[in-house]
């Protein structure tokens, strides 16, 4: 799973430039054509989100926005690749030029992660 971190711009709900949108669209198309893109989505700014916190039986709902843009997620892409290195290689090709951006790559668990007999 490739998480795209939020930026000040995305949190302020400022739309990216036309060029940036086109570049992103082209990149997604490339992922699709390579047969590695399973799913993707973009998230609205945290001002439109809420958090639900659990303390024992108590539930607290906190309205956004939330501070620390870098800790927030602005979008995701689910890739199916053989290795983490391959995901990194694709992530490097994301068209984030000039702006400060960060993506986080997190492998999903698969069956073998729960199988104590495998790979030993």
């Amino acid at each position, binding site marked *: 799973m490739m998480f795209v971190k939020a930026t000040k711009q995305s949190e302020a709900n400022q739309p990216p430039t036309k060029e940036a949108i086109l570049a992103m669209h082209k990149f997604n198309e490339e992922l*699709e*054509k*390579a*047969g*590695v893109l*399973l*799913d993707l989505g973009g998230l609205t700014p945290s001002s439109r989100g809420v958090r639900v916190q659990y303390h024992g039986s108590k539930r607290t709902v906190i309205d956004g926005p939330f501070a620390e843009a870098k800790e927030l997620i602005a979008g995701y892409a*689910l890739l*199916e*690749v*053989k*290795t*983490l*290195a*391959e995901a*990194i*290689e*694709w992530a490097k090709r994301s068209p984030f030029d000039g702006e400060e951006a960060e993506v986080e790559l997190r492998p999903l668990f*698969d*069956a073998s992660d*729960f*199988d104590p*007999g495998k790979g030993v």
Partner: protein
Amino acid sequence: MSDPHAAIDAVFRIEFPRLVAALARVTRDVGRAEELAQDALVVALERWPVDGVPDNPGAWLMTTARRRALDGVRHARIADAKHAELAREHDAGPRDVAGELADALDDDIGDDLLRLVFTACHPVLPTEARVALTLRLVGGLATAEIARAFLVPEATIAQRIVRAKRTLADARVPFEVPRAPERAERLASVLEVIYLVFNEGHVATAGASWTRPELCHDALRIARVLAGLAPDEPEVHGLVALLELSASRLTARTARDGTPVLLADQDRASWDRVLVRRGLAALARADELVAARGAPAGPYHLQAAIAAHHARAATAEATEWPRIAALYTLLARRAPSPIVELNRAVAFAMAFGPDAGLELVDALVADGALAAYHLLPAVRGDLLAKLGRGDEARAEFQRAAELTRNERERDVLLARARAAP
């Protein structure tokens, strides 16, 4: 992530098919293109661990391959008759090989990739060679990976690929996308290769494990690529749908100890929902295209429709078996084969009772075409057991166990023999 070799492998997997496709456009010779791409990779393997992976690795590889190609052209002028044709073209003037090579990667290489797929799956090649060449050239797998997947020595696969390239060159197979009327038949060959790769991963014909999911993922990836290259072909989407839906159950098909789990016993909550959704979307696309063409659904499309019925059923009991039986009857008419007939028998048994299934199975036994296929006695045993004919069922399960080459499957069949009423 500091392992440079893992990074290099990743780049190769992504770039190799594009590189070969772009090179083949210029050399018009897939074998030569593969060699040039391979040479470029060797150079990269020397340089990148020292210099680091370049910012645009695809362009770097293309430049390197281009240099090699031009060296080859120069050599060809002097001695090597094998490259004479390329050299002649180079000298002829109007065709600027260097320029074309430089442009090749910048352009949309979709058409070249599609040509590559059709060439790798050319009917002039034996099936095994098509499979190996497709995985190598289109899937970007290393020879060693293909060998591991098929449980054969690496040298065997290397030989197979060398021979395949020679066959393509000897037969002067053009690097092109076939047109009608040849196109349909050639596309069927491409789809068959992808399906075979998937199936080998889905039910490994031999060896200690029941499935080899890696191979399924490779096939699925190639199928998805093909759907992007040939978006108007309903059967391509039909195959993608079938593979996505089958892949959604991969995890559920094997218990933790490696034992196969049959469809009816699978934990449906562990089916991959993303893949199910993708499969249903691909099926819908195939349906639209078929409706627009006014053509009947093809065999992969029909199988996908059957798989979709399973995917939509919340429980095994909720499966709409009469609908599935009807789809199998359509499939048997469209693409008759003993295997389809066996599946039809199972669907009939589920829809209309074991007697109805047994009737079809017995016709197959009399036909003799599946005499060596372990699933024929396995199905017959299952139906006999349901009818309470325990001794006959036991004998069938034992025969099935003798026939299979998959060890996990054998265990299951022997257990069923012991459990027969």
